[in-house]
């Protein structure tokens, strides 16, 4: 299996500027490998280091030690991001633009020729079901519609790898289902999807493999069925792995 995304002994430390504050270690020697065509769930409680890992992969944060690669290119080189799509958590896109203009802007940054962009933009708007609102300013969109615009911008360059940071966060059940369907469709098209989520049921239903991190350390990595093991579901396994104490019901 070809590794599309790889981290080697990845360590990230944040030095505090405040006097008396110690250095915070966000990641402690993280080793990950995601193969082509996989849907990979990246799980962990808040503050576990999921977003930091994504920030390193996207070149926003330099690793303190270790390395990260996308398509075998060091993530510190901008060219590593040519074949990826990224959806951040809760983003408010330029509200004075329409969805069509926003997608055209991102297409220009990827250097897509105009005829390709002309074909790709309506396709994406149809995929995320935003065709009727394509020429309306984004400021008139609901939260769910904004999230779908985000998904469309992440797909503008027809990426081989999609990095999604809590793609269903803040969405209603219908919105979640739509995003899940899109991820499923991308999987069927052979795309690699790397996403973080707190919705464990959703992870269980769409992911091939998952990794669970806690306090910056990798706690579990494997197929969903293997990690669930003897537990009733992924949520129970997750709580057990991160060491959540069972509370007796009084």
């Amino acid at each position, binding site marked *: 299996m070809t590794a599309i995304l790889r981290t080697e002994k990845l360590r990230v430390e944040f030095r505090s500027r405040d006097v008396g504050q110690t250095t915070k270690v966000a990641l402690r020697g993280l080793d990950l490998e995601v193969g082509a065509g996989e849907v990979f769930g990246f799980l962990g409680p808040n503050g576990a280091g999921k*977003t930091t890992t994504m*920030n390193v992969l*996207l*070149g*926003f*944060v330099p690793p303190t030690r270790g390395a990260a690669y996308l398509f075998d290119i060091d993530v510190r080189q*901008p*060219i590593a*991001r*040519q074949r*990826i799509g*990224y*959806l*951040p958590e*809760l*983003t*408010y*896109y*330029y509200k*004075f*633009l329409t969805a069509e*203009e926003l997608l055209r*802007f*991102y297409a*220009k*940054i*990827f*250097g897509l020729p105009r005829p390709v962009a002309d074909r790709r933009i309506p396709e994406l708007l149809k995929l995320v079901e935003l065709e009727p609102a394509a020429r309306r300013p984004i400021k008139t969109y609901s939260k769910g519609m904004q999230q779908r615009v*985000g998904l469309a*911008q*992440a797909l503008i*360059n027809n990426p081989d790898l999609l*990095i999604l940071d809590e793609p269903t966060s803040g969405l209603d059940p219908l919105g979640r289902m739509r995003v899940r369907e899109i991820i499923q469709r991308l999987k069927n098209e052979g795309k690699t999807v790397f996403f973080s989520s707190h919705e464990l049921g959703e992870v269980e239903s769409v992911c091939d493999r998952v990794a669970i991190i806690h306090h910056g350390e990798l706690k579990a990595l494997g197929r969903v069925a293997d990690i669930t093991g003897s537990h009733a579901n992924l949520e129970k396994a997750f709580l057990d792995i991160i060491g959540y104490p069972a509370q007796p019901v009084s």
Partner: protein
Amino acid sequence: MKNISAVAGIVIKELYRRKDFYALFIVTVVICGLMAMLNIYNDTNIVRYLKEICLDLIWISSLVIAITTTARQIPAERENRTLLPLLAKPLTRTQLILGKFLGCWLACGLALLCFYLFFGALAASREHHWLLLNYFQAGLMHWFLLGVIVAFALLGSLIFAAPSSNATICFVLVGGILFVGRNLDRVALTLREPTRAIVNALYYALPHLEFYDLRDLVVHNWPLVAWKYIVLALLYASFYMAVFLIGACLVFRRKAVN
């Protein structure tokens, strides 16, 4: 270059879709239009006062547009988190800064063009002649002055946390340089060392924005400034733009994105 022009295009779209420019333009048009209708003391030279007031309003409006538009660019990208998907694309931080600068500067240029067209029409309606080259020199120098201010505000937006504090500092500094900058060397002569050396150093280090104020040229229909001096002034402004932009790129390279 395509990345820089894409970012610049978004900034220009933002300017013409927001109300700031229209509000300032309408205020200028209304004030000057009303004044143009008045005939005070049957004074034929009243047109000079009218031109002066109109140019003052244009200067104030252009400074407001340049500083407020630039000061909010990077902070708004961070606050709305649009910086994340943007930098996750093959776009470098230097390209983003240059795109923002170019967009703000071009947007200011477009706004200036509208203002000067109105000014020209107003002046021509009273004077019945149009000194095109005078307007061109005054407008060009004004635009380059805004270039220096835009580059400075962009650097400030990476240093100061809030756009409002950056805008205030820019207004105070620009106002200070325009009003007292030219006299700093004379002020230095009245001081003792080491203050004298500091004020003298400031006199030479700060950009002399007053060089770009050619309002009298169009108000009094003076002869054109020699083009070699205009070219030198444009090079001087370009130098300061480059210095502030290099500073902004260096600061932004070390800045956390989120």
